[in-house]
């Protein structure tokens, strides 16, 4: 069984540029969440999508946006990149909108974004 897959694995961008990160959830999982993990810190919640609708948003600026497609894959977009956006971006999937249950969220390996 394929787990949560994210692409690309690594990315280097320049300040002011735009970036798109992609995530494919586990087959059958309808909920996708995005987290930002700065080096040495715990993941911070950015967005949750369920059935293609935004169901939750963390304390991130409007430069961050996301969407979910009919096949439940998702994209995270970040505009006008800042040095502080350098982080590991994690995608997590769950069968339901609740993100609870025996298995919690399953995380992908992340996309390491470096802004120079």
């Amino acid at each position, binding site marked *: 069984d394929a787990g949560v897959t994210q692409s690309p694995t690594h990315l280097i961008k320049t300040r002011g540029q735009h970036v798109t990160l992609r995530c494919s959830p586990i087959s059958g999982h309808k909920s996708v969440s995005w987290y930002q993990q700065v080096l040495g810190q*715990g993941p911070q919640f950015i967005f949750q999508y369920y059935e293609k609708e935004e169901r939750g948003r963390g304390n991130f600026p409007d430069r961050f946006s996301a969407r979910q497609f009919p096949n439940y894959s998702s994209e995270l977009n970040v505009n006008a990149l800042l040095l502080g956006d350098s982080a590991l971006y994690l995608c997590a999937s769950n069968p339901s909108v609740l993100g609870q249950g025996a298995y919690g969220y399953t995380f992908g390996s992340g996309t390491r974004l470096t802004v120079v």
Partner: protein
Amino acid sequence: QQQVKQSPQSLIVQKGGIPIINCAYENTAFDYFPWYQQFPGKGPALLIAIRPDVSEKKEGRFTISFNKSAKQFSLHIMDSQPGDSATYFCAASILGSGTYKYIFGTGTRLKVLA
């Protein structure tokens, strides 16, 4: 207060020892407490989770102890092995705007010496 405070920041134990990682929270609206293990270059992987109506849960060598009145919970790793060397995160789940999100602690870097 939507924070989860985790300690210690790092921990070194001998093989076979029992490392203990502690977390504390303030918001009584948290209702699900998972622990995640993260290896370098990988995403966090769920180890074990507990709900606040349970005081202890064991899965293999991993045990969560939960003290609802003190708003604290901890992870114990029995018979620790070098392969357990990783960063461990506690988290708490909270409902907001019709969905649950996780609030993570700052992580504990565990090293188990052979």
